């Protein structure tokens, strides 16, 4: 192959300089993380006297060992998992059903209801959180996993995304299924739902990340330490650096707490990236 005569569109858009700048900026991205990793490997007393000790041996895994001894990180992690997974499944179920109906079925007030739901897109959590907190009081729901999962399920974004996605599936597919004598629910379940998998992945990842990172709602709803999510748990132990467990332990805790999601991310990176970008183009 005569390589020099080959034309590729990339050659017009790629820019070596930009690339190397981006590669250099990655240092800024990584430096804080490396710093934390360094701190987590140091003895707390040594750090008290000055954090430049990070650059000197000895290093120790004691901070990580301490997590295993007494920390509640495991419980918090479990709560976060339960809440994030539960909320994700809930959102996917509710939004798929609703998205299918809005995209494919006729029922009275369909347009009105859909527009109402779209208005929901504009309602920020802050506008409802105080009232929500009171409502959950009335039903005594606070400090339950359900209470942590439910608010996220009212997300209008999911319904919007699923509706758009169902709309994008050619109607002929439903029609072929109808001629194949398929019931309404079976068309949804066996024919169309499998086709929305990319959208499910996108919405699922978004929901999971939102639930995993949620701060305010668990802060005021999960007030018993058994119900703390990872976010709240870490926050509860992170003030008063000097008085509590020390920088090294906090760093180790932060790394330990993020490790599972980071591992999941590394394994599924390709899918996550496709899902995130795929959802955007639709």
């Amino acid at each position: 192959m005569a390589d020099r005569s080959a034309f590729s569109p990339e050659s017009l858009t790629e820019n070596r300089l930009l690339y190397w700048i981006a590669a250099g900026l990655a240092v800024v991205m990584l430096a804080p993380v490396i710093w934390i990793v360094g701190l987590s490997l140091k003895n707390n007393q040594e750090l008290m006297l000055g954090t430049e000790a990070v650059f000197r041996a000895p290093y120790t895994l004691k901070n990580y060992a301490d997590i295993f001894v007494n920390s509640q990180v495991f419980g918090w992690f479990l709560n976060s998992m339960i809440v994030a997974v539960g909320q994700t499944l809930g959102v996917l179920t509710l939004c798929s059903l609703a998205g299918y109906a809005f995209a494919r079925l006729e029922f009275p007030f369909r347009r009105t209801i859909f527009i109402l739901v779209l208005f929901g897109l504009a309602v920020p959590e802050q506008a409802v959180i105080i009232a929500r907190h009171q409502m959950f009081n009335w039903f005594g729901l606070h400090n339950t996993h359900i209470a942590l999962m439910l608010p996220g399920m009212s997300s209008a974004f999911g319904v919007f995304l699923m509706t758009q996605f169902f709309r994008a599936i050619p109607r002929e597919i439903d029609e072929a299924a109808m001629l194949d004598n398929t019931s309404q629910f079976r068309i949804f379940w066996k024919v169309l739902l499998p086709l929305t998998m990319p959208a499910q992945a996108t919405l699922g990842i978004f929901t999971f990340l939102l639930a995993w990172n949620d701060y305010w709602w668990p802060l005021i709803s999960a007030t018993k330490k058994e119900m703390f999510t990872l976010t709240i748990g870490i926050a509860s132990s992170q003030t008063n650096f000097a008085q509590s467990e020390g920088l090294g332990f906090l760093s180790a805790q932060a790394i330990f707490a993020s490790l599972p999601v980071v591992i999941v991310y590394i394994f599924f990176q390709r899918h996550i990236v496709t899902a995130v970008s795929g959802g955007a183009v639709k």
Partner: protein
Amino acid sequence: MSAAIQINDVTKRYGALTVLENIDLEIAPGEFVVFLGPSGCGKSTLLRMIAGLEAVDSGTISLGGDRIDTLPPGKRGVAMVFQSYALYPHMTVSQNMGFGLQNIGVAPRDIDRRVKAAAETLEIAHLLDRKPAKLSGGQRQRVAIGRAIVKEPQAFLFDEPLSNLDAALRGRTRLELAQLHQRLGATMIFVTHDQVEAMTLADRIVILNERRIEQMGAPMEIYQRPATKFVAQFVGTPAMSFLPVSGIEDGARGVTLDVAGAGRVETGVHLPATFARENASLGIRAEDAKVLTPGEDGVPLRVKVVERLGDRAFIYGTLSDGTDFVVEDAGRSTVAAGQEVRIGFDPDALHIFDSAGRAYHHTEGA
């Protein structure tokens, strides 16, 4: 397995817009009927109403004597092949073909047998485990047909199923469809805007235009004796040339016409007394005119383009009054653009249209 279809006085509206009006049509068992018409004429809508994908606003549709327009699509006993094939992307070929049977509770063994049989017939047995994304356009098309066949429907409905194929494949598939029809003997309705498909496949062509059926008939009848100017214009390539008629005189063989660009033209057509003589026109197919040898007396045609197809050539030009005209010549035609040639017509092959578009032809023995 094949059944008659009756369409009685069917009307379809979308809000204020009427797309089909008082359609009456009977299709005999085992007949291959093609709905032909320009886009937007309602031919697909009519097909989809038979399938149950569109509601009928008034009128009835029956299949094999039973009224079906009140039944949901799956209960009508018809199968449909979509223009886009509409294969289920997440199912394999055999799952695609067996899905409908599964839905009505056919035993898995029977499904398997019927799918295999259909796949053999269509020569796609080796593709049964693939998903549609891994198939070529032609293979997908076969799977779509296979999915229809396994259901053993009382009627097959085809919605422009060949339009996504390339020219060569389209020709071959056309032949295979014809063979399939012969073998199954099933009632088939085929929607297309391609007149070649219509001509080659149909037992009977139904031409639709502007909400109604313009003409029904065997392909050659449609071609040779179009009922209206629309049909005459729509069927046949290149399209029929139309010349404005300024005067009509009765003669023994037929009427003689005064045509602006062609002088007096004798025809073999007899017109009834009621014929409205204003704004009539003369229609001539390219193959019904010929280029005369130099010196012969004929109508002068200024040649603009010569389209050579190998076995024949079409000569496009203008008559003295500027009217466009096409004439067929032999493949070795020496006519070149810019020349002026003389042409003549076969009087018995001429068509005369009144101002409303109604056609009058030469009648044998009249």
